[in-house]
């Protein structure tokens, strides 16, 4: 199977040659055809630059990018069979929804009736059938995003890029849209690549993801791999607010003298144990209460299922964890 997108030691520097800012620094990446791929990372980690390198709005300072095996180094954005759903949607305010969706077909020279028919199809795909005559300014945020989606998909791209697609939506809409995007991708079998800083979004939507840090990829894998077996402290910390356990404590807990991670949901408070600490914070979360135990210099979070007794802040407790829950990290 060919890969949809391939990065071969791609670097993108900004600024002067003497003191470059390395937005993307030697990234190797393969995105399989038909994948729902997430690029996850904090702001400034290089994930958005990577997306713009695929769409062609940035050119690599060195390295090669291939889309379906073809080197696109010399290909301008308008000749790449890749479409983007922009973070601010970038709908054309002077055109109605139908003309916005049909724009890509219009510039390719398709007749008015043919492109309007295709635009209507796309609008019904995103459940906005009766909105063709409206202007983008008359739509809600969620509707605008669907228009942006329809406008990109009408061109039948080989790869669809989504820049923080759910960032501007409220929580409820965001959850609905997550399911919808996932279903849409399954149905259309187009490779989706999306950028997000929200680990929950990345874990729940993607079937594989890359975690970015400082212009490099910290780890690539399936959501399960990344969540259960983070390779570095950064990944453990960033994905799913895990407990990062220093080498000495790992050893005290029965592991090697190495950094390890421990999921809060696999951790519970106990009367006795190898490591004890003081409860410093309690946060009620509905189905559970998250307790923070200060053990020397390290904070250990544990989840107390609702219904069980909650300790007082300031009291001393130890903690235990399910066997095998302590994950020793290979990288720093």
């Amino acid at each position: 199977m060919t890969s949809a997108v391939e990065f071969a030691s791609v670097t993108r520097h900004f600024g002067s040659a003497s003191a470059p800012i390395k937005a993307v620094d030697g990234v190797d990446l393969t995105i399989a055809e038909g994948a729902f791929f997430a690029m996850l990372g904090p702001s400034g980690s290089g994930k958005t630059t990577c997306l713009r390198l695929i769409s062609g709005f940035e050119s690599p300072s060195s390295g090669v990018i291939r889309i379906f095996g073809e080197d696109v180094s010399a290909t301008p954005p308008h000749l790449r069979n890749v479409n983007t759903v922009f973070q601010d949607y970038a709908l054309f305010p002077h055109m109605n929804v139908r003309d916005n969706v049909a724009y890509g077909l219009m510039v390719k020279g398709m007749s008015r009736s043919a492109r309007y028919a295709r635009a209507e199809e796309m609008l019904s795909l995103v459940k906005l059938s009766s909105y063709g005559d409206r202007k983008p300014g008359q739509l809600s945020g969620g509707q605008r995003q669907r228009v942006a989606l329809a406008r990109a998909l009408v061109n039948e791209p080989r790869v669809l890029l989504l820049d923080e697609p759910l960032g501007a939506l409220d929580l409820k809409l965001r959850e609905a849209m997550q399911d919808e995007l996932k279903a849409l991708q399954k149905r259309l079998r187009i490779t989706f690549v999306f950028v997000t800083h929200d680990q929950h979004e990345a874990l729940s939507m993607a079937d594989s993801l890359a975690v970015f840090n400082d212009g490099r990829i910290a780890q690539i894998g399936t959501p399960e791999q990344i969540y259960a077996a983070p390779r570095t402290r950064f990944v453990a910390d960033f994905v799913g607010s895990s407990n990062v356990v220093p080498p000495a404590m790992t050893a005290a807990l029965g592991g090697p003298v190495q950094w390890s991670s421990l999921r809060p949901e696999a951790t519970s408070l106990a009367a006795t144990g190898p490591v004890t600490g003081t409860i410093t914070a309690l946060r009620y979360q509905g189905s559970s209460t998250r307790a923070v135990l200060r053990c020397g210099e390290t904070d250990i979070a544990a989840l107390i299922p609702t219904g069980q007794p909650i300790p007082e802040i300031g009291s001393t407790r130890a903690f235990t964890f399910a066997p095998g829950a302590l994950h020793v990290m290979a990288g720093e």
Partner: protein
Amino acid sequence: MTAPAIIPARGPADRLTALFWRRPRLLLALLLTPPLLWLGLVYLGSLAALLLQSFYSIDEFSGRVVPEFTLKTYAELLRPSNYDVIIRTVLMSAAVTIGCAILAFPIAYFAARYARGRWKAIFYLGVMLPLWSSYLVKVYAWKLILAKEGIITWVASATHTTPVLDAILALPIIGGNSLSTSYLGMFAVFVYVWIPYMILPMQAALERVPTSMLEASADLGATRAQTFRTVILPLALPGIIAGSIFTFSLTMGDYIIPQIVGNSANFIGMAVYQLQGTAGNIPLAAAFAVVPIVIMLIYLTLAKRAGAFDAL
């Protein structure tokens, strides 16, 4: 001791602020009254007086204004000598507006999209600097530049391009004896004098077009030319229209440049100046002055109908 919930007023300024806070409309009314008086009475009033005058006529024997409603004065505008003045002025204004728009666009686009920090400051200075010096000085400077003994003739002979200059001057209607006595020269001076009024609104309109809009267009397969035609131009159009209102109406009303540069052909501004001054024919001067207003109204109506303001 606890702090009071209400801090005591420190003086009349506090009490006044409190009054405005309770009655926001009062402040608005206070702020708007002087300009509305100015606009409403002085400006619109004189416009109404002008309109009224244009419906009067002049007694040809006594030279006195007859304050009776008549359309005779407007009919006079259609006399060939007067009609020519109107057509000439409208054509020149249209040419100047188009010339300004074409020359201003790259400058405005550069300023809106690429200029940052120091370059932006240089842009504003460069555009505004000519406005700091006297209009008359600039026009006379241009007369010297364009004159037969001027810089352009000198440059042409130094670069052996005199035949090119002569060929341009030999063009019918727009050519002439020298650049300073031709429509071409007048056009150049008009474009120079009014172009800042085109650049600034155009730049403001282009600045409001987000980069992502241009990227979206390219992303969807549009070439640069298609992006320009279908995205940039429609979104910049309100600014271009605003600029063209300035350049068009300023050219229509100008009476100095046609006197100094060009072939002394009459323009609306000059006609108004002569009619109300030496000729003392206030009604005809008023009728002439109404022409630019009517043309601007027609222009704006057409622009609105063409959807020029849809992006506002």
